[in-house]
């Protein structure tokens, strides 16, 4: 792994932490506040590709568990793992990997390389609208579906809440997360395009 990769991973982790320090928006009736972290998860996957995005999220979770208040609302430490929303936190790691993998797979473009000579790759015939649609799909599957698929069963397990009720409670977040996926896709597409020039 090159120095550039380590620096990129550290910078993206810092970026997600910075996004998480924006005060979360508490939602009525649902035990998970709406935050910008998942936006960071999607962006990391789309821009860095699966391997580095996974490492970014791994680093993020490690720093949170070590006791630095980097999670929304200034929470931190091992207490988070004991809480009912830990599944959503841990789910972000595979979420970012899947987002990155799907984005690469769907658009057949190479993720941003540490080595700047490879920027000629990809996006030869596809219009940018298609590219955005592919990115958005990747962000929804990885950053939304997968994170929920891990977070909801965890919530059910810890709180012994009814599974169907837990699912219904999460519906409130879907519009916000879809919007985040779309914005992440547009931003990622612009960054990728600019980087190729």
């Amino acid at each position, binding site marked *: *792994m090159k120095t*550039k990769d380590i620096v990129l991973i550290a910078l993206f982790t810092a970026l997600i932490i910075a996004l998480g*320090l924006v005060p979360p928006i508490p939602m009525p009736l649902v035990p998970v506040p709406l935050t910008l972290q998942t936006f960071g998860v999607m962006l990391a996957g789309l821009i860095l590709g699966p391997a580095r995005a996974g490492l970014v999220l791994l680093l993020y979770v490690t720093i949170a568990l*070590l006791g630095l208040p980097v999670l929304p609302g200034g929470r931190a430490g091992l207490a988070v793992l004991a*809480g*009912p929303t830990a599944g959503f936190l841990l789910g972000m790691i595979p979420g970012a990997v899947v987002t990155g993998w799907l984005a690469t797979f769907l658009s057949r473009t190479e993720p941003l390389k540490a080595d700047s000579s490879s920027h000629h790759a990809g996006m030869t015939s596809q219009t940018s609208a298609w590219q955005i649609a592919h990115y958005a799909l990747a962000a929804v599957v990885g950053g939304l579906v997968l994170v929920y698929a891990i977070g909801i069963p965890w919530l059910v397990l810890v*709180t012994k809440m009814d599974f169907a009720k837990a699912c219904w409670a999460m519906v409130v977040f879907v519009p916000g997360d879809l919007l985040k996926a779309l*914005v992440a896709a*547009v*931003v990622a597409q612009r960054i990728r395009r600019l980087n190729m020039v």
Partner: protein
Amino acid sequence: MIGSLYLPGNTWLHRLPAGLKLAVLAVGSTALMWVHSPSLLLVACALVCLSVRWAGASLQQVWQQLRPLVWLLFVLGGLSVWSQGLWQALEMILRLLTLVLAALVVSMTTPLTKMMQVVVRLLWPFQRLGWVDADKVALGVGLTLRLIPELGVQWQEIREAQLARGLMPSPLTMGVPMLLRTLRRADEIAEAIDARG
């Protein structure tokens, strides 16, 4: 700058080795998931509350960490009273509170460097296999912590530049320059690190 949860002190809880505390926490938390008797849970909760006292935490510091959790417990408690009955709800709340407080005690009595040492030790088998390089992990954590305030400054700069031009900030107009600058900065930092070896 964000601070860690660590409370400087020299109680017997502070003096225990970090690895032992983490191991006790892991085993204890798992065991607690299978405890259903209310009296046993009460004993566990009382013990943990006592150790919070022993760790020398003030009520205010504990409250600061618990505050985001209180309304969450309230909502979850309400939901499980409704779906499972009062006793089940009380049991769940008591268990969650115990787990979170126990983890808080460990975070408050263990400095970040000690936690990092445990992480590095846990990584050791992987390092032997050649999968990870503990030094690079440490570099990543250090860089991330250093870069969080930098990104805050960067956000402020972009905001001000756009306001000066009469632009209303939106996720797109903020996201793209934020990421571009971040990627460019990654180049610079990587070069600087490589130049120093």
